[in-house]
């Protein structure tokens, strides 16, 4: 009677797996029954061996998967951390860019408001200078009078005082004889000469001019 010996035993350690088939002893009995029994036993053994192999293979594959899963998990965690850091960095950069843009917009708005205030403050003077030029350069009395009427609307009164500085030296201002704005505008019409520059305007609460200082 032949004995089929198969050696095998299993080792399981860490993420690495190995196995070795252990020895399985089978004994034979009398011929006939024994042959049938041997045949069945061999068949069962084969089946058992195959099952064992299958189980062992499954275990090995499972462990490898878990192992590689652990590895992947670590890699995935590292990648996730890197991704998170990258996202955070981008968010920070975006936040800083938005902050810079907001500051720049505020600065631009402030500059525009200042320029607008300066322009509004200078607007009456520019308008008056323009009208002075129109009156002095008018081609006829009628058009000069229309410009005079328009100019007088900027003033609190036709008798708004006009001071003309003829000299400003050594801290002393010398003036021509003071006149009124109506008379000064008519002077521009008569002499057709606009040689004096506006150096100062005073306003009342309603924005009307209450005093004019000119400079030769």
């Amino acid at each position, binding site marked *: 009677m032949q004995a089929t010996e198969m050696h095998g035993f299993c080792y399981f350690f860490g993420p690495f797996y190995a196995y070795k088939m252990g020895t399985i002893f089978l004994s034979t009995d009398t011929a006939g029954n024994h042959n049938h029994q041997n045949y069945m036993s061999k068949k069962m053994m084969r089946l058992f061996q195959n099952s064992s192999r299958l189980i062992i293979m499954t275990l090995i594959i499972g462990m490898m998967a878990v192992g590689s899963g652990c590895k992947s998990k670590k890699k995935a965690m590292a990648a996730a951390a890197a991704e998170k850091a990258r996202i955070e960095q981008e968010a920070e950069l975006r936040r800083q860019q938005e902050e810079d843009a907001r500051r720049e917009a505020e600065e631009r708005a402030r500059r525009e408001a200042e320029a607008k205030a300066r322009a509004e403050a200078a607007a009456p003077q520019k308008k008056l200078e323009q009208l002075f030029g129109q009156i002095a350069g008018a081609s006829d*009395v009628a058009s000069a009078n229309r410009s005079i009427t328009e100019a007088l609307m900027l003033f609190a009164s036709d008798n708004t*005082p006009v*001071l003309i500085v*003829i*000299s400003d*030296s*050594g801290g*002393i201002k*010398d*003036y*021509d*004889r*003071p006149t009124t704005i109506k*008379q000064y505008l*008519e*002077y521009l019409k*008569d*002499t*057709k000469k606009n040689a004096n520059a506006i150096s100062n305007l*005073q306003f009342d609460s309603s924005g009307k001019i*209450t*005093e004019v200082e000119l400079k*030769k």
Partner: protein
Amino acid sequence: MINNRSLLALLFSLSALGSVMAQSAEISPERKQAIDSLALEKVRDLSKYISIIGNKSTPFSEATRVMDRAEELFAPDSEMGVSSLNTKEVNYYKVRKYFERLIALNYDRVSIQWYDIHYISDLERQPDGRYVGVVTIYQRFEGESDDGLKYRDTTKKDITIYVERKKTQIAGRVVEFWDVMVGDIRVTGASA
């Protein structure tokens, strides 16, 4: 030995010298130049007013208004000399009267132009504090009528100028200014 007479003479000299120095140190050359320019400018303004008043195309209301402005340039009781080649005599009229006669001239077209306006005597400070000078001008007068009547002459005139420091109140504060006034305008020559 210093006697009383010498001492008095010395004191008088010193006070006179001090007075002269005070007068000449009144205003700086820049300020004096500004006053000189201002006075000359007033004479030029007067010439434009006279030209407007005499122009027959000037509306009467405008001519009357300009007469008021021109009269304000003159010192009180100032007179304007008028000459004629026909009569060879010079007449003097009060300023307002001169302007009224100018408007009433019987021409259809009148042109009066002043030129070569300059100082013949610089503005100088007087003891009373005023500055007085003389400006000379040449006046070209041309009158024409539609019926062919024409008159042309050139007259040389000397204008006395007064400049005085005055004060006024503007918006509750005292403002000092230089008041330029035209005095008499005397004819010193005439030609065709």
